């Protein structure tokens, strides 16, 4: 599965994207975040305030309880500040 990161989430994680094989038991975006936080300090820092980081699956905004099954690309980013 492809993960992509933007703005300060990207800076904290230290990469723009990565391909990861998820272990069993990761059903939702929230599960994925919990697992990522255990992978290293950079992830723990990026997701230290889980409530603020937003997610999108295949270019569509989703909530933490969204299922990740079948996702091709999951993105994490701060609240948007366009316009």
């Amino acid at each position, binding site marked *: 599965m492809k993960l992509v990161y933007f*703005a300060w989430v990207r800076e904290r994680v230290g990469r723009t994207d990565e391909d990861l094989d998820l272990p069993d038991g990761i059903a939702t975006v929230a599960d994925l975040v919990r697992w990522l936080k255990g992978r290293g300090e950079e992830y723990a820092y990026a997701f230290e305030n889980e409530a603020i980081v937003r997610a999108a699956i295949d270019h569509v905004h989703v909530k933490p309880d969204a299922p990740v099954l079948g996702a091709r690309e999951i993105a994490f980013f701060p609240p948007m500040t*366009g*316009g």
Partner: protein
Amino acid sequence: MTSTIRIQAEGFEIAAEAAALTTGRADIGAVIAFTGLCRDEGGRLSALELEHYPGMAEAELARIAAQAEERWPLMGLTIIHRFGKIAPGEEIVLVLTASAHRRAAFEAAEFLMDYLKTHAPFWKREHLKDGTVGAWVEAKSGDDLAAERWA
């Protein structure tokens, strides 16, 4: 309905974009052009840098535009959002709405801007006059409240 959505590094010409909506037709009574500009925040900024999520940005603007078209009797709609480094005084975003009557055009333009601010995957960071890279601009709770008006 004429609907144009573009995400680009280059600037844009309001007059040309407005003409593209209205030329050759006589059923449009009202056109709103909203232009969002880069401020220097009291001389502090040398530029704003806009990062975006290619692919999702286009898809999200198309979704927002479709919602506006469903909600108001629009005869034309244009959204152009720039990315990259933008100097103070330069344009960041253009939203155009055209309708037979002004109320629909005004409401749709406000809706588009409120949703764009809170739903379109763009992030701004400051570049300071002293040459350093400043902070990422924080989302405003006022923008969330503005978007919730339409829910």
